[in-house]
């Protein structure tokens, strides 16, 4: 009672209550029914809830507006009306937060006391539990049905190795019921000792090591007999993490095991087969086409060892990439189409270098479970056969080509030349109908038959090749020429099995030959008509034909040709030169011409011949042979020779006489001069001796003797000079005439001085000539001019020059003009004659040789000299001289 009286205490208790307490007062409607409440008191718990301190006196429905959706109010009303205490649960809150409260409503007088307990969690747990239960039930049911419907065995052991659970399958296997088996150990359930032992040990392991264990075992099934099982034991942990149970499943893998074994077996068989087969075989597996199996033959074939097993085949044989055969491999694998082909060319590297090999190939896809898993390849090498066949084909085609190129017809005959079969060619042996024909009858013209028979027999006997040119009558009875060549084919014992023959039509060649022969014959006849020796030689210079003239002259044998047939007939002195010149011509391809002596067989004498030869060329300009003649020129040669000898002799004589003359002149002058000198000498001695004792006439006489003697001297000198210039050959040099005149000026200085004479000259030419002679020429002229000066008129000598072109050569024209006594017009030519003097001996000394010498000199130079004169006026000499001397000896 204390509690109630103490309001504070009461309030404290009231407000600290863990539940919500509300004191409500009923509100009545007009009908005196309760429809709402007025809040008298709320404890802290609730006030926290509503977040409204100012609640006192407020309507409940207002403050707890959310109760509208609930029947909380109704319950309150019920209690308020009935006065019966109610307990009910109700959810309260908004969308987000809902709480479940347990309301206890008590009426106390006019007041309702509501207590609310938050039972949300409890409710939730309850709900969950309620939900869980059916779920658990459901799961259990599901679990059971699975466990019991699976063919696999499911079971649980406790730590005592007792079965705590066994599913239907297991029970079936045991052939027991659950009651019979649950709670029992393995052995009790029919397991063999060893089996049970094994499992119990395993259970121990699972418990101890807290891990699963897997194994395979066989067990006699009650219905199915002995089966193989694959089992797994797993630990079941309690909360503490300890193993409290061991659960296990077991699967009957008998079928699959059997299947596996079968597969294994078949695989083994397959493997064995692969390795035992003699054909190189290869098994590829997988998209990568890895080499799974390969027998030793295949290894050999690709030149590798066992190490390639497991490698991708394309890695082992990279050279296959891109090849036709690889395409086929891929095709077989991808499309499953078997591949067979023979003599496939596969270049690959067997020995270290890439070579061509030929194989007969068979590829088959390996299909497992409807899927292509790989392929098997079998390859048989046929390289040799293929190569051999190719070679044969090649040689055959070559043979065919050869036959077609060389012959018109190729045929076979039996050993006796009886049956003929056409082998190739355009078959003049047309049709098979023609078989069984005798070669002779078919082929040989009657006229050639005998010869043919003879040759055939010989061939048969000697086992030699038969060759013959013969005529054949065509179907239209025309004739043609054929060249037949038949070769015997011998067996191992050297017996003739058959004959192979080839024939070519040579009609046109034969005709040509005939034409040539005819033309040759005509040539020969012609050649033998002419009087000259005619000969021909081949392109090498080998003389291969002479006309009959040759044989008549040389007396040689008609069948001699070549070097031996003619060189020996030459004169010994000529032989070397002739053969050398001839072969030089042949090699150079140039026309040949030479004179030499040939021995006349009849008379034994050597006669001179002129031999000429010309090369005969074909269309391309290549020399095919030489055509030559030899003409007897003996007469002419002799004459020429004789002439030459004569000339030589004469020349020698001339030279000799010239020399003699020279010598003579020299000696003569010397010897002639000698006595003259003596005369003078002794005359002078006489004069000395008789000094002063001569009377006038005597002195005069002596003077005259001196003069005469001097004359003699001059004459002799002149003649000598003349003869010398005549004889000696002077060498032509470049002569500057200006220099020459200068020298003459110097040499005639005294004479010029004495005569008070002058020489004028300018721009005289420089030309080729003999310096000495030219000097002499001009000296004589100038000397003359001085000598023949007019009395009391100093001699003026003018020398000028011009030039002209005559017959392509340049000629110098030099004019020497003086003012001397001149000469008569009609003496013009005479003055150049030897020893001709126009004046008396006494008045003008001179030999009379001077001008003739000038003329001689001018002529020796190939020039000329002419003179014009006017009496008592002067003389003009014109000298022409060529600039160039063709012959350098003048």
């Amino acid at each position, binding site marked *: 009672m204390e509690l109630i009286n103490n309001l504070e205490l009461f309030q404290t208790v009231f407000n600290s209550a863990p539940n919500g307490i509300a004191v409500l007062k009923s509100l009545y409607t007009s009908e005196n029914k309760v429809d709402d409440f007025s809040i008298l008191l709320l404890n802290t718990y609730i006030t926290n809830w509503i977040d409204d301190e100012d609640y006192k006196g407020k309507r409940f429905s207002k403050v707890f507006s959310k109760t509208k959706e609930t029947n909380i109010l109704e319950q309150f009303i019920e209690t308020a009306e009935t006065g019966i205490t109610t307990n009910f649960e109700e959810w309260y809150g908004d969308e987000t937060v809902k709480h479940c409260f347990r309301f206890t409503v008590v009426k106390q007088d006019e007041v309702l006391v509501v207590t609310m307990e938050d039972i949300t969690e409890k409710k939730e747990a309850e709900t969950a539990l309620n939900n869980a239960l059916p779920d658990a039930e459901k799961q259990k049911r599901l679990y059971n049905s699975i466990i019991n419907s699976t063919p696999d065995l499911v079971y649980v052991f406790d730590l005592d190795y007792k079965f705590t659970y066994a599913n239907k399958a297991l029970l079936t296997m045991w052939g027991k019921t659950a009651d019979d088996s649950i709670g029992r150990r393995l052995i009790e359930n029919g397991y063999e000792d060893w089996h049970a032992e094994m499992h119990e040990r395993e259970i121990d392991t699972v418990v101890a090591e807290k891990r699963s264990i897997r194994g395979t075992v066989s067990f006699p099934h009650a219905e199915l007999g002995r089966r193989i099982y694959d089992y797994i034991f797993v630990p079941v942990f309690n909360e503490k993490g300890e193993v409290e149970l061991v659960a296990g499943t077991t699967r009957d893998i008998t079928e699959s095991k059997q299947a596996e074994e079968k597969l294994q077996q078949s695989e083994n068989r397959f493997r064995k087969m692969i390795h035992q087969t003699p054909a190189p075989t290869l098994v590829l597996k997988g998209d990568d086409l890895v080499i799974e199996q390969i027998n030793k033959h295949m290894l050999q074939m690709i030149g590798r060892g066992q190490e390639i097993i497991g490698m991708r085949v394309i890695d082992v044989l990279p050279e296959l990439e891109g090849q036709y055969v690889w395409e086929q491999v891929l095709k077989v694998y991808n499309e499953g189409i078997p591949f067979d082909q023979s003599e496939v060319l596969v270049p690959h590297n067997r020995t270290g270098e890439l070579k061509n090999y030929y194989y007969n190939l068979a590829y088959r896809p390996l299909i497992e479970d409807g899927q292509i898993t790989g392929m098997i390849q079998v390859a048989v090498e046929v390289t040799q056969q293929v190569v051999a066949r190719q070679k044969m084909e090649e040689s055959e085609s070559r043979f065919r080509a050869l036959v077609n190129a060389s012959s018109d017809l190729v045929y076979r005959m039996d050993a006796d030349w009886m049956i003929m079969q056409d082998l190739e060619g355009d078959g003049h042996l047309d049709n098979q109908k023609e078989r069984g024909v005798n070669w002779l009858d078919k082929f040989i013209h009657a006229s050639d038959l005998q010869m043919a028979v003879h040759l055939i027999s010989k061939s048969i006997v000697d086992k030699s090749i038969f060759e013959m040119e013969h005529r054949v009558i065509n179907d239209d009875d025309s004739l043609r020429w054929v060249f037949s060549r038949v070769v015997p084919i011998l067996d191992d014992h050297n017996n003739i099995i058959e004959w192979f023959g080839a024939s070519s039509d040579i009609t046109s060649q034969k005709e040509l030959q005939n034409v040539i022969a005819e033309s040759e014959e005509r040539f020969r006849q012609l050649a033998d008509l002419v009087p000259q020796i005619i000969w021909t030689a081949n392109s090498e210079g080998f003389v291969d034909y002479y006309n009959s003239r040759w044989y008549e002259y040389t007396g040689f044998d008609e069948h001699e040709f070549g070097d031996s047939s003619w060189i020996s007939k030459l004169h010994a002195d000529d032989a070397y030169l002739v053969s050398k010149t001839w072969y030089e011509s042949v090699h150079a391809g140039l026309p040949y011409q030479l004179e030499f002596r040939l021995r006349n067989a009849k008379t034994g004498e050597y006669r001179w011949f002129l031999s000429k030869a010309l090369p005969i060329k074909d269309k391309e300009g290549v020399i095919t042979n030489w055509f030559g003649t030899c003409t007897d020129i003996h007469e002419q040669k002799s004459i020429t020779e004789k002439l030459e000898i004569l000339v030589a002799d004469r020349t020698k004589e001339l030279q000799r006489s010239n020399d003699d003359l020279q010598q003579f002149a020299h000696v003569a*002058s010397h010897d002639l001069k*000698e006595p003259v000198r*003596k005369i003078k000498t002794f005359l002078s001695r006489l004069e000395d001796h008789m000094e002063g004792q001569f009377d006038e006439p005597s002195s005069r006489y002596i003077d005259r003797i001196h003069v005469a003697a001097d004359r003699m001297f001059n004459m002799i000198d002149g003649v000598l000079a003349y003869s010398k210039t005549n004889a000696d050959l002077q060498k032509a040099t470049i002569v500057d005439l200006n220099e020459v005149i200068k020298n003459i000026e110097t040499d005639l200085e005294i004479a010029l001085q004495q005569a008070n004479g002058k020489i004028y000259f300018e721009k005289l030419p420089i030309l080729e000539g003999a310096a000495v002679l030219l000097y002499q020429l001009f000296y004589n002229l100038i000397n003359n001019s001085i000598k023949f000066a007019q009395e009391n008129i100093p001699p003026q000598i003018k020398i000028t020059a011009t030039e002209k072109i005559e017959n392509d050569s340049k000629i110098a024209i030099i004019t020497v003009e003086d003012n001397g006594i001149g000469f008569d017009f009609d003496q013009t030519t005479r003055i150049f004659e030897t020893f001709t003097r126009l004046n008396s001996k006494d008045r003008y000394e001179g030999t009379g040789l001077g001008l003739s010498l000038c003329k001689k000199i001018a002529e020796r130079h190939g020039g000329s000299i002419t003179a014009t004169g006017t009496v008592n006026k002067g003389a003009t000499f014109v000298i022409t001289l060529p600039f160039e001397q063709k012959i350098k000896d003048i």
Partner: protein
Amino acid sequence: MMNKIILLADDDWDDTEMFCEALADIDENIICHCAENGDVALKMLKDHDKIPGIIFLDLNMPVMNGWECLKEIKQDERYKDIPVIMISTSSHKNDMETAASLGALCYFVKPNTFKDLKQVLELITSNLENGLKEALPHLEKNKYLHVFL
């Protein structure tokens, strides 16, 4: 002592006579040996002990002419150093060349007058003591003499 022996080879008796006369006029002490030809001249050389101081050779001589004799002299050890003068009636370039090439000292043309002969000979003989070679430049002045050096 001065060598006053002269050897002359000339086949012309008149010339020889004149020569000796001229020499005698110039110097009486000069001994002149006269040979008719080259052969005799060589013999004389051998026979006489004394070597002549000078040899005159005429060109044209029988048996052995001047050239041959000159050759012989020049080949002989004993005589090759004796000065040789060629004399002739004519002066031909060829002859002068030959004389020079064979080793003659000089060449002169027989003068026409006695006076001229004496003049030449005087020139030559007066230089005998001096050594003719050295005197030759002087000799060249004479128109008859052609000197080779």
